[in-house]
């Protein structure tokens, strides 16, 4: 039976459509504007004539970016950091979380506290910076001279992600594990053949958390990577923005695009990969948030 909508309900529904439409437009407008401004002609951008749709369309700003070696270099570096960083972090986190999820682990509470304490208290960025400098010396002395590996190995671990994994592993029924052990499975086989397949969605979520934070990482990459050829994309964007904004640098007088367009083009290029995979990964993130309310 379909109930007739009451007036108050109807008003509320209309209100929510209006509110959400306005908010959603606010959320995506800056990105749409960036795309329009990146492909609009010089005068239209400089005189502030772009509101939503592009004017006097040109693609030279994008061509400039695509023709820049530094841009592709930065992209490659970001990919390197994301791929290796995620693999390393996931490896460490999965093994650690698996061990922590076992009731028979001695000093389990101590280890848990060891982890959780880092969420309560962090030394701060200056001591961390000093620590990374020391780490760099140690890495150099054992032959790892590439700062990228310092970023991959030393940074980006998050206690919260390990706890998410641990909780997922604790949810695996112990009967299945026992059955596997009776069948002669080793510890490693139990992990790869029982635990990993049974907590696939959490693993995907946590891997995405790591990957996104690597892709978006900026501060430490800027502090620790001295060689500008090794800068990841985020550092490259920021340096370009500073260059265009602070020094009043202008693109050549004859170029058909404005200085702003070059920056917008760079921003658009950097978010395209995320925009492409975003619809597919969005649901995992929603799941991850709901796992956040964890219990000990």
């Amino acid at each position, binding site marked *: 039976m379909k109930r007739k909508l009451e007036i108050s309900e109807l008003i509320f529904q209309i209100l929510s459509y209006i509110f959400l439409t306005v908010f959603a437009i606010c*959320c995506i407008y800056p990105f749409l504007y960036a795309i329009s401004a990146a492909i609009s002609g010089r005068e239209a951008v400089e005189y502030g004539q772009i509101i939503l749709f592009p004017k006097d369309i040109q693609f030279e700003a994008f061509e400039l970016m695509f023709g820049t070696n530094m841009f592709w270099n930065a992209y490659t570096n970001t990919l390197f950091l994301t791929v290796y960083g995620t693999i390393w972090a996931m490896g460490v986190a999965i093994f650690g979380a698996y061990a922590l999820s076992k009731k028979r682990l001695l000093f389990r509470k101590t*280890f848990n506290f060891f982890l959780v304490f880092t969420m309560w208290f962090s*030394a701060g960025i200056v001591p961390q910076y000093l620590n990374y400098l020391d780490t760099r010396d140690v890495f150099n002395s054992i032959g790892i001279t590439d700062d990228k590996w310092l970023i991959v190995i030393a940074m980006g671990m998050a206690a919260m992600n390990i706890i998410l994994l641990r909780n997922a592993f604790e949810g695996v029924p112990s009967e299945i594990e026992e059955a596997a052990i009776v069948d002669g499975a080793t510890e490693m086989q139990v992990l790869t053949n029982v635990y990993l397949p049974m907590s696939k969605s959490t693993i995907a979520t946590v891997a995405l958390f790591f990957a996104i934070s690597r892709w978006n990482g900026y501060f430490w990459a800027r502090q620790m990577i001295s060689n500008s050829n090794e800068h990841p994309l985020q550092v490259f964007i920021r340096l370009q923005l500073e260059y265009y904004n602070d020094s009043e640098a202008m693109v050549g007088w004859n170029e058909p695009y404005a200085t702003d367009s070059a920056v917008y083009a760079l921003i658009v290029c950097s978010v395209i990969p995320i925009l492409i995979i975003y619809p597919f990964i*969005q649901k995992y993130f929603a799941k991850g948030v709901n796992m956040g309310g964890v219990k000990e």
Partner: protein
Amino acid sequence: MKKIASDYLVYDEATGKYREDPEQKVRDDVEKHYWLNVARTVIKDWRLYLMLVPMLLVFLFWRYFPMYELLGAFKVPDDTLAVADRLYSGFSYFKMLFAGDSTMSVEFWRAFRNTFLLSFYGLCFGFPMPIIIALFFNEIKSNIARSIYQVATYLPKFMSTVVMTSLITMLVRRGSEGIGQFEGIEMGIISQLLCSLGLITEEVGQAGLLNNPDFFRAIYQISGIWETAGYDSIVFFAAIIAISPTSYEAAQIDGAGKMAQMRYVVLPSILSTIVIMLITRIGSLLNVGYEKVLLLYNSHTYVTADVVSTFAQRYGIAGTMIGVASAAEMLNNIVGMLLVIGANTIARKASDVSLY
């Protein structure tokens, strides 16, 4: 613990004599060889403990060693020595931060106040927004429409801080006057909009909103809502859709209108979620995302924008005053930790859910 004779002796009824208690001997042995037994267990189960090692090392090297570096806050700076070998300077850096009227002390207290205020305003303006959005999401009955809204509103969360701040910088950029034959460049689109709405004057817009300390907090909070409100609504929305439809039906039978249903059905059901999220937010009041501030502020806006982390970054990383910077961060983070622990204790008491 010293053992007395009666611990070892039990009365044997069969013989009517005292004899040694064999179980106590075992208990004693276990106690005496506690670490030996631990070692035995670990060796027998070495695969499991080996799995733990990389994680422990990562946390030890890059989370706990920096805490050890905090000792530098009490020591005379000397690059040639490890932090443990340096001379103690006592609390001199803390005195520098606390003592009245030096520039550094003024800047530190300003940064401390800004840190607190930025999160506090975030709590006041940023916290209710996701709840409101979740309530509205619940009203959208069409799945397609709701997915579209969700995709659009979650999107900014996935963008990096650099991309967000670059966009903000460009959207409120300053304009420049024309010189001679060259025409000037118009200010950013958001500044134009605010100008035409009469919210800011032409000169303020031309000078660039990010160069104006009066606008920093507003920009920070509004962009914060833009970034996270949609995504943060997920938690509340999940709590709302978990409400069983029968609750609404019962309320309708009792003659409850839309507002009454909100008041008596929806709000009580999501109250525990709200309380927990609120407590988490309060716990991280001194935990401002320094990256965003660092990317948005400049020397014109230190008055309202400088937070403790950026203060420390300026003095300790960009400058050379490592001791003062460490001391500042240490103070901030200790107070922050007390807030987190306090908030967590309250959460544990207020509900069954503990945050960590």
